[in-house]
């Protein structure tokens, strides 16, 4: 089911959108005097509460820039971002970002990291919350380990646990599984969906991996290469847990590839990586 | 935090110990002044070099 880019299909109207991106444009001034480099053009997205939305596009198309704008770390050149109807002016603990390069604090143990945002709570409350999320992400037994003693997958689990412990309304994730091996990625995606269903958070997940997007998202926003515009917003109606061999799965993938001007019917196109 | 507090306490402990030791061993801070310097209070210091 393809949606025309400009229009979005709210399932049922339950108050203002969790995250509303209206007519956002972004260009980077490279050097004084020289022409600014356009990065994002006419971005319109509306994310409902509890929805899992993936943004996918070739690397360097401005996905991370868009995420930073939505999260409030960057101001758009034009346009606006609203969360629950309020305009976004900066980062906020109700909207936690999991950065691409990983921001777990290496000088803290796992439990100290996970409890980082809970300084205002009592010790008992904090320990209870920390233990809950450590168990949830499967780090039981590693509470007093340090970052350098953990594998890549486990570090991402700490990242997620810490974000969830802050009890945000929205989770922004910037290619969090990019550095993991093939098998761990599958495991992390399954765990993330499970946690998303349990915690009922709104998630905006940025990735360059189309398969990852389809395995995770309710809706996939497909961005073109730079200057990127929205090529397609695709609702993924596959039932969960998703059967990755099903016909529908492959059709969905082809639609996304097609929207990006690529199709894999007759082998990998030569210009696939541009 | 207890580790950093322990390091801090150890540092302060050392500071106190070495200061007391020094005052005791190398200065006359603890010796009762046999002769009170009386009116001048401040010592009358006379410099010299160990020559002739």
């Amino acid at each position: 089911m393809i949606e025309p880019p400009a229009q979005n299909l709210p399932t049922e109207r339950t108050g203002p959108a969790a995250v509303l991106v209206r007519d956002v444009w972004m260009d980077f001034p490279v050097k004084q005097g020289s022409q600014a480099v356009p990065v994002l053009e006419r971005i319109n997205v509306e994310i409902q509460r509890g929805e899992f939305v993936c943004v996918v596009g070739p690397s360097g198309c401005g996905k991370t820039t868009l995420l930073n704008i939505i999260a409030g770390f960057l101001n758009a050149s034009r346009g606006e971002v609203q969360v629950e109807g309020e305009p976004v002016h900066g980062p906020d603990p109700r909207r936690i970002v999991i950065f691409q390069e990983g921001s777990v604090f290496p000088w803290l143990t796992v439990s100290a990291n996970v409890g980082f945002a809970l300084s205002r709570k009592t010790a008992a409350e904090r320990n209870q919350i920390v233990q809950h999320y450590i168990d949830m992400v499967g780090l039981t037994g590693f509470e007093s380990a340090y970052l350098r003693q953990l594998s890549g997958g486990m570090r991402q689990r700490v990242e997620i646990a810490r974000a969830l412990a802050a009890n945000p309304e929205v989770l922004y994730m910037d290619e969090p599984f990019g550095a993991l091996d093939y098998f761990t990625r599958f495991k992390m995606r399954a765990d993330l969906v499970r946690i998303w269903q349990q915690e009922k958070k709104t998630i905006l997940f940025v990735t360059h991996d189309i398969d990852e997007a389809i395995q995770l998202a309710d809706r996939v926003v497909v961005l073109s290469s730079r200057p990127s515009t929205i090529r397609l917003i695709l609702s993924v109606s596959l039932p969960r847990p998703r059967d990755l061999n099903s016909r529908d799965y492959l059709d969905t993938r082809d639609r996304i590839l097609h929207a990006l001007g690529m199709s894999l019917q007759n082998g990998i196109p030569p210009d696939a990586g541009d | 935090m207890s580790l950093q507090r322990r390091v801090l306490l150890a540092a302060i402990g050392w500071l106190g110990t070495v200061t007391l030791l020094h005052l005791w061993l190398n200065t006359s801070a603890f010796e009762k002044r046999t002769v009170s310097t009386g009116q001048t209070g401040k010592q009358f210091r006379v410099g010299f070099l160990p020559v002739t």
Partner: protein
Amino acid sequence: MTSAAQPTEVIGQEPPFVSARAIILPSIVAVMFLLFWDGAVRLSGSQLFPKPLDVLWGLVELAQKGLLIKYVVASLFRVTWGFTLAVIVGIPFGLLMGSNKLVQEAFNPLIQGFRPISPIAWIPVSILWFGVSDAAPVFLIFLASVFPITVSTAAAVKSVQSVYLRAADNFGLTKFQLFSRVIFPASLPQIVTGLRIGLGIAWLVVVAAEMIAVNSGLGYLIIDARNAGKRYDLVVAGMVLIGVIGWLLDLLMRQVERFQTVKWAYGTLHD
């Protein structure tokens, strides 16, 4: 309900490992050095330069006279206070300079201007200000170590990865919390390295500092031995003491580098 990750993924604690070889090898070299030294003095027939044994007897003589403990304590007292003041001034100022561009631009030239001045050049000034008290050597030692500490702290703050700052910002930390819970811990490893360098320099300077009119300390021991005529055995004894204590101080500081809150930054190549 939860799927625990396999424990094998955890990289074990690194126990400090001192092999027997690590002790025997250097001791052989040390013995050879002593023999070489002894032989060289005998060959040269110099009556002035002491042989290792003379130095040992010099140390024994100092210990018997109770001067050994007095001088060691005096030097440690001055280095401790000079270094502590340098830490108290250096770290906060370094943190400020590292985190505030204005302060950095304002003070950096001044600091870079003072840094190359050798503490020995400060001796005349410190006598004019502090005269013949302990304050003069403490001042020199303070000067010697405050610059490396300030500079390394400032560099540490500036090199804190921005992703930590963004994450902290995201969690809504106040400016003070950002400093005490992210910037300081993140810079701590480099600060500790700066402290180690600062302490090393402080101990280097103690000899020069104690050449002013103080009547105790290892630096004084050396200068006084020269005054006492041919007591070059005491001069070398002083050097040996300074070397050994300086080495122990460095070992002590290296233990600080094995603390968890700092070790994370040194990676596995750190010995």
